[in-house]
């Protein structure tokens, strides 16, 4: 770049356009007389004041001179012996072009030659898939391997919360039969503890999310965050109502007290039975 060398000190640079950078692409064309007269005149007027560009022009002319003196390629005498015969042979293979000669091998070879392109595409695909894969990995790593019974016995709400984030674990836990009395005790604790504990409120919100999914209309992530905010700000009950979620933990607890203690039921059954406004039980 020779922008700094434009002015030889005798004449000031009158405007921004008059810099070497703007003439860079025109110099080689100027040296070979390939510019239209108007542009040529503009370049010539710049060359009067710019020694660096004049030097470049000299360089181009020198190369032009060398190029014009490049020797002819020397071809072997016997190269043309069977030339016409070779043309006939290629005419008889009319459907083949030089590029199509090897079919699949040629395609693979071309891909190999364009390996930078293939690597770029592969990288793009990996980068696009990576967040999804990482989220899945994280969820499946955090998702509990233990059964719902064990989780409820341990009162491990954190693991239950992560289970709700992972599709496979959620399905497994929702369909696992657990003793009704255990479900009652655990849900009762969760319900009373959530007022003080943010993680439990989040867990509860995830349960709502699950219920909504069971109803057939899943929340978007932004809606989910909105509800969680509302739970934190106004408490669980107003948030539940404003989100039009008809499942009420109190109804569920009430329903559980009516179920025989030794009976087993799944969380899915519990949600489906107690998610109507009028409480079917």
């Amino acid at each position, binding site marked *: 770049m020779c922008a700094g060398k434009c002015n030889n000190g005798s004449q000031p640079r009158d405007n921004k356009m008059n810099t070497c950078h703007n003439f860079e*692409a025109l110099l*080689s*064309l100027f040296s*070979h007389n*390939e510019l239209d007269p108007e542009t040529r005149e503009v370049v010539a007027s710049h060359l009067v004041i710019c020694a660096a560009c004049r030097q*470049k022009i000299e*360089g*181009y002319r020198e*190369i*032009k001179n*060398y*190029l*014009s*003196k*490049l*020797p*002819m*390629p*020397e*071809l*072997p005498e016997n*190269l*043309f012996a069977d*030339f*016409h*015969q*070779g*043309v*006939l*042979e*290629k*005419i*008889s293979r*009319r459907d083949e*072009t*030089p*590029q199509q000669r090897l079919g699949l091998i040629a395609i693979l*070879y*071309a891909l190999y*030659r364009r390996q930078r392109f293939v690597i770029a595409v592969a990288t793009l695909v990996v980068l696009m898939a990576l967040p999804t894969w990482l989220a899945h990995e994280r969820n499946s790593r955090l998702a509990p391997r233990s059964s719902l019974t064990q989780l409820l016995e341990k009162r491990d709400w954190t693991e239950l919360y992560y289970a709700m984030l992972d599709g496979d674990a959620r399905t497994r836990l929702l369909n696992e039969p657990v003793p009704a009395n255990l479900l009652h005790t655990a849900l009762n604790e969760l319900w009373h503890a959530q007022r003080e504990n943010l993680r439990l409120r989040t867990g509860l919100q995830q349960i709502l999310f699950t219920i909504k999914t069971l109803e057939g209309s899943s929340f978007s992530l932004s809606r989910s965050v909105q509800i969680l905010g509302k739970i934190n700000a106004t408490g669980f009950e107003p948030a539940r109502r404003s989100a039009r979620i008809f499942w009420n933990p109190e109804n569920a607890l009430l329903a559980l007290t009516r179920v025989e203690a030794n009976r087993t039921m799944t969380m899915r059954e519990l949600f489906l039975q107690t998610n109507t406004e009028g409480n079917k039980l």
Partner: protein
Amino acid sequence: MEKRNLTEINGEAKLKISEPAFAEIVERHQYSLVRLAARLVGNAEDAKDLAQWAFARLWLNRDHLDDAHDAFYYLRKILANLCIDHLRQHGRHEPEVAFDEEQFSSELASPLQQLETQELQTELLRCIDELKPKQKATLILRDVEGYAVAETAEMLSCTQNNVLCNLHLARENVRRKMQQWFATA
């Protein structure tokens, strides 16, 4: 291969270029075409192969030509594009075509000058060989072979502006590399 003539291969189609005329075209232009291809791809055998494909394509598309005078322009165009495809597929390699040594040095006086010029031209050929296929073809057609910008554009199936752009890039690349070579030599 069994020797056959063109009428056997292509049936009795009505020809715009007759068989004898085609044979004459091959005879007349084979040397210049192979030479041009050799400049572009740097290998005599490949050059011959590509030139033969260009003639074959001319014959197969003879119905699209107005008259035999178009043949040479058509041939150059096919050949230039075949050479670019060939360069793209096979990448860069050291030129294998030998250059006439008499031409290297005929106008020069001393053996030392001859040696210097040989070195310079070898370096110049290496710089050209390192260019991208399209830039290389543009530079050779315009600056080495001396075709006009419009002709070059037609041969490479692109616009004149495209040719000028490629020319600038190629010349700048070669100038910069040669400048470095001069500095180290």
